[in-house]
């Protein structure tokens, strides 16, 4: 049966990028549809009525929502190549834990870097750097969070790399200076075609965030 795979997404979303990386890792052909988040399509509202958010993967007409759930679905359905989750249950639990950590912590904390000022901003910077420190410790000396091979946690976190320039500029710190191991890991991931072809240019992302920041802070 011909597989029909459609992805509803937004170019700058690090959550959408996770799905694109997973699809590329598996070599899956799909139709990419860019959503205008200020004018959401009927299809998006139909396929994700609960959250009305991207990304949404539509596989043979059936929607799957929430980026990490989508990535697990992709890994389970297209299980013939490039496994993203390990096979050992304990290692799987660890992978899910750290991907969930990225979900709970990195986005919200990163967002505060460009939406706050003054004291709040100082606290946000401290918190963000703490989070990166925890991730760096978890990475340790391994080439990837997944160990020898690129895996689930790498997919979950590497998409934030495209936002690093924005985080650094608005956060007023240097990622290379504070967390060189994270930069080394990200660059290693960028050697993979699936990552390099998915992640947008950091400058473009920065300009996008600059625009959002202006609107948010009413400047």
């Amino acid at each position, binding site marked *: 049966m011909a597989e029909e795979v459609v992805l509803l997404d937004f170019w700058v979303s690090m959550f959408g990028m996770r799905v694109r990386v997973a699809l590329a890792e598996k070599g899956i052909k799909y139709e990419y549809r860019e959503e205008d988040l200020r004018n959401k399509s009927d299809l998006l509202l139909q396929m994700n009525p609960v959250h009305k958010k991207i990304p949404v993967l539509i596989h043979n007409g059936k929607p799957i929502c929430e980026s990490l759930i989508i990535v697990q679905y992709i890994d389970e359905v297209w299980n013939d190549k490039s496994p993203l989750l390990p096979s050992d249950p*304990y290692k799987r639990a*660890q992978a899910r834990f750290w991907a969930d950590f990225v979900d709970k912590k990195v986005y919200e904390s990163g967002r505060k870097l460009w939406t706050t000022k003054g004291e709040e901003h100082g606290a946000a910077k401290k918190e963000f750097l703490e989070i990166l420190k925890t991730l760096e410790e978890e990475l340790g000396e391994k080439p990837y969070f997944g160990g020898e091979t690129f895996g689930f946690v790498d997919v979950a976190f590497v998409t934030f790399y495209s936002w690093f320039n924005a985080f650094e500029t608005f956060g007023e710190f240097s990622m290379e200076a504070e967390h060189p191991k994270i930069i080394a890991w990200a660059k290693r991931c960028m050697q993979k075609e699936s990552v390099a072809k998915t992640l947008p240019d950091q400058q473009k992302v920065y300009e996008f965030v600059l625009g959002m920041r202006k609107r948010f802070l009413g400047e």
Partner: protein
Amino acid sequence: MANSSSTDVKVLGAWPSPFVIRVRIALNIKSVKYEFLEETLGSKSQLLLQSNPVYKKIPVLIHGGKSISESLIIVQYIDEVWNSGPSILHSDPYDRAIERFWAAYVDDKLFPSMKLINTAQGEEKAAIVEQAIEGLVLLEEAFQKSSKGKAFFGGDRIGFLDIAFGSMLGWLRAIEKMGGVKLLDEAKTPGLVQWAECFCADGAVKGIIPDTEKLVEFAKILVKMKGAPLGKN
């Protein structure tokens, strides 16, 4: 893997926590014997701090010396390790994606809005109650689709979403009582009303969900301690 000795499996938890309840139900489904180590309210044991250094929260499952945290992750681990017992997650990847979606919805949207009911007053309270009920109506629809006329989200037997959502029933009843509100009712969520009864009567669940009265009393203690009835542990 054969049944392990009870010392091989430990659960760090506390009786009122719905997240801990999830782990206990999952272990019961698999007939796994375990040692339950109750954390004292207001303090965290060395073992907890050691085995969950990132969040320092319960539940933690310690299996053969290795620790696993985050209730839904623990339940999936239990399902995968003790794979000779009845399955907890669906066998079809799409059905699994759906039950994971709704389990996340319970954690991210439903339970937080339920908790807010206790501290809210007047118009704000009415709005929050309305929001919680809307969420429950969405779960009612999900139940109708997923159960296909059977008793549980998982079909004939309790599954992942039954555990994720059912673990909240003790607090749902307590919040209804404390707030003087009705969350599950025959008119809007008839399927869930029936489901709740079946869930609580199930062999794997009996005795795990605390009585409503006990939870109401516990909530009063929490208010005294923290000024809010349902902080996360």
